[in-house]
C-alpha cells in the first residue's frame, strides 16, 4: 500500500508522482497532420451513345424490356421542370427511369418477333386483305375487355361491358328510316365517321351483353322502317329537310309552265336549279348568295321560252 496518496505532499514533489491522470484543460500541442492519400482520378469512359453508329442494329442494344439507361439511349430526352432551372436532361433523371419505355418495341424488333412467331400462326384469311373488304365481310366489331389482377380473385366488374361498333352505311335504309334511326340512336351515332357505337353492360355476363347489343341493333333497325300514323300529320314546316317532290313549289312551277304552254320535260335543268336553290335556302342558311341563286333560277323559269 502506497500511503503517499493519502499524505499531503509538498509542491516540490507534486509533479514527480505521475499516478494522477492528467485532465486535458490546456490545449494540446498540435500533432503533425497525417499525410493525405493522393486522390485517385479514374478515367470515366464516355457514354456509350456517343460511339453508336446511326445504322446500328438497335435490337442488339435493347433486345428486351429494361429500365431507361441514359448512356445507351442516343436521344436528347428531357423530362421534368424545376422553377428557375434549365431543362432537366436524361442523366440523373429518376422520372425517366420511373416511366415505362418501349425501346424494345421498335418496328424492326416487332417484325423480328413476328417473324419468329409466324411459323406458329395460321395464315391471314384470303379475301380480307384491305380494310374495306374486312368491313364488307365483317361489318360488326365487338370489343370485349378482360382484366387481370395480381390478387386472389380473377373477377372484375368492368369485364362484362362490351362495345359493338358498325358503320351505318352497312344497313339498308331509305330516307325516312335513316333519319329515324339516327334520331333513335342519338349520341351513339357519330356523323363524322358514320360509326354507330353501342355499349352495353346491363346484363351480368359478357355473352349476355353481346346478345343484348345485337337485340338492340335489330330493334332499332326494324323500328326505323316503321311509319307511325301521326307522321302523316307532318306539315312542310315539320319536314326534316326540304323535299321538293312533296312541296307546293313544285306544283306551282309545273302549273305555271302548263299555263304558259311550255313542256316541263324540256326545262328539267332549270327546274333542278330551282329545286337546288330552294333547298339551299330552306335547309341551309338564307343569305345573299342563296337568295340571289333563287332569284336567278326563278327568273329563268318565269321568262323561259318554248324552244
Amino acid at each position, binding site marked *: 500500500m502506497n500511503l503517499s496518496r493519502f499524505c499531503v505532499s509538498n509542491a516540490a514533489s507534486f509533479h514527480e508522482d505521475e499516478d494522477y491522470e492528467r485532465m486535458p484543460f490546456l490545449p494540446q500541442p498540435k500533432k503533425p497532420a497525417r499525410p493525405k492519400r493522393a486522390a485517385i482520378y479514374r478515367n470515366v469512359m464516355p457514354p456509350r451513345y456517343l460511339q453508336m453508329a446511326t445504322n446500328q442494329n438497335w435490337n442488339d442494344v435493347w433486345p428486351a424490356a429494361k429500365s431507361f439507361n441514359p448512356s445507351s439511349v442516343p436521344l436528347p430526352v428531357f423530362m421534368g421542370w424545376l422553377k428557375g432551372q434549365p431543362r432537366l436532361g436524361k442523366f440523373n433523371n429518376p422520372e425517366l427511369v420511373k416511366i415505362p419505355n418501349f425501346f424494345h418495341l421498335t418496328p424492326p424488333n416487332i417484325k423480328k418477333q413476328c417473324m419468329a412467331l409466324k411459323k406458329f400462326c395460321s395464315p391471314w384469311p384470303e379475301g380480307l386483305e384491305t380494310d374495306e373488304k374486312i368491313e364488307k365481310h365483317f361489318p360488326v366489331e365487338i370489343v370485349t375487355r378482360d382484366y387481370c389482377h395480381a390478387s386472389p380473385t380473377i373477377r372484375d366488374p368492368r369485364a362484362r361491358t362490351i362495345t359493338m361498333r358498325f358503320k351505318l352505311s352497312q344497313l339498308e335504309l331509305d330516307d325516312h328510316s335513316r333519319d329515324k334511326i339516327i334520331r333513335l340512336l342519338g349520341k351513339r351515332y357519330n356523323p363524322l365517321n358514320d360509326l354507330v357505337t353501342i355499349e352495353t353492360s346491363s346484363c351480368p355476363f359478357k355473352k349476355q351483353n353481346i346478345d343484348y347489343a345485337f337485340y338492340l341493333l335489330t330493334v332499332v333497325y326494324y323500328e326505323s322502317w316503321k311509319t307511325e300514323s301521326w307522321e302523316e300529320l307532318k306539315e312542310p314546316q315539320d319536314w326534316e329537310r326540304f323535299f321538293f317532290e312533296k312541296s*307546293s313549289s313544285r306544283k306551282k312551277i309545273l302549273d305555271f309552265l302548263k*299555263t304558259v304552254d311550255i313542256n316541263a320535260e324540256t326545262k328539267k335543268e332549270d327546274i333542278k336549279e330551282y329545286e337546288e336553290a*330552294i333547298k339551299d335556302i330552306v335547309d341551309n342558311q338564307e343569305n*345573299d348568295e342563296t*337568295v*340571289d341563286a333563287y332569284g336567278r333560277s326563278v*327568273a329563268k323559269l318565269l*321568262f323561259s321560252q318554248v324552244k
Partner: protein
Amino acid sequence: MLTTARCVAKRSSLSLLKRFMCSPTNSVTSSISMPPEKPIIGTFEPIKKDIYERLFGVNGFEPVAVELFEVLDDKSIMVRLPFIQLLEYIEKTDFDRPANRYILWGRQGAGKTFTLNHLAYWGYLNGFCLVHLASPRDWLDEPAEIEVSESRPGRLDFPLNAALALRHFKNQNSLFLSKSELKVSQKYTWSLREITEQGEPLVNVIDHGISRMKHASDCYAVLLKELKIAANNNLCRLMVLANDVNLFYKKPLVKHADGRVASVEEMTLARAFMKMFKNDWKNGLFVGATYVNQSHWKNRLTPYYPKALLTDRGWEDFDPFIPIKVENYSDMEADSCLDYYTDKMLLQRPQSKTPEGREEIKAINARNPFEMYKFCSNL
C-alpha cells in the same frame, strides 16, 4: 338622331280626314314628258310637282321623306340598280303570262320604299294602272275607325281608310281612268236603294265608295276584283305596288269589339288586297317591298332576308317570286348623293364639303341612304 318616322307619324282619324279633304280632285294633266331613254345609275330623276301631288299627295312617302323633300325643296329620287333591274325585267315581260311577282328586300333605310315609288312614277308615265298601298299599317295596326261589316258578318271594315285608299287610287289613275273605259262586270247591291248595275263605268264604284264611306271597304274590294278581271281581259295593264308586304304575315294589332285580336282574313281591305298576291291574273306585275325595323340596338340583328320576313305563309303565297336586293349606296352613289345635298344646301358646315368630311359621313353611316340623310340633316 331624329325620332323615327313611326313615332312622329300622326295616324289619328283627324289628320286622316285632313289628308282626305286636302287631296286634289282629279284633273286631267297636260302633256306627260317621257323620261330619258336609259336612266343612268347615280343620277337624280326629278318628279314634277303636279305629278307628285297626283301620285303621292294622299299617301306614298313616309313623313320623314316628305320632310326631306320639303327641306331640299325638290322632289327627286336617285336612279339605282334595283330600279334598273326592274325595268329590265319589265322590258322582257310577256304580259300574256301570269303576273310576275318581285319582292324588294334590304336593310332598313336602304331605299326600298323609294324604289317602289320611283317605279310608281315610271308606271304612271308609261300608262300602267297603279294599285299602290303605301302603308298597310293603317289597315293592320292603327286604322282610323273600325266598323263591323254589314255585308259579311264577322269581318271588320275601315271606312275612313278605305275612302282614303279609293281617293288615292283615283288620284293616281285619273289620267288612265279618263282615257280607258273600264266597266263593272256584274251587278253590285250596296243597299236597298244603292245599286251599281252591270256595265256601268268603274269610276262609279270609286265615287260611290268615296261618298258613302260605309260601303268604302266593299267598294275597294270590288274595285280590286274588277281590275283583276279587266287585266285578264286585256283591258288594262296593272301594276300592283305593295309597301311593307311582310306586315300582312305578322299578327295585326286590330282588335274586335270584344277584345279578340283580329286575323288578316277578317279585315275586308287586307283580305281583298291579299288576293292580288296570287298570280292568277295576267297583264301586269306585282312589286312588294319588305319592312324591317333595325333602328334600335336591341333589334339591330333582326334578319332582313325575304324568307325570314315573309314567314312560311308568305313564302307559300309568293313562291315563285323574284327577290331584288336593295343595297346601301355604292361609293359612286354616295358621292352623287352628297353632291346633291351640297347642291340643295342641306350640307352647310364647311367640314362636310371637304374630302375628309365626306369620307367620314360615308364611313360612319356605312353608306346607308337613310342614315346618311339623318346625319347630314344637322351638318
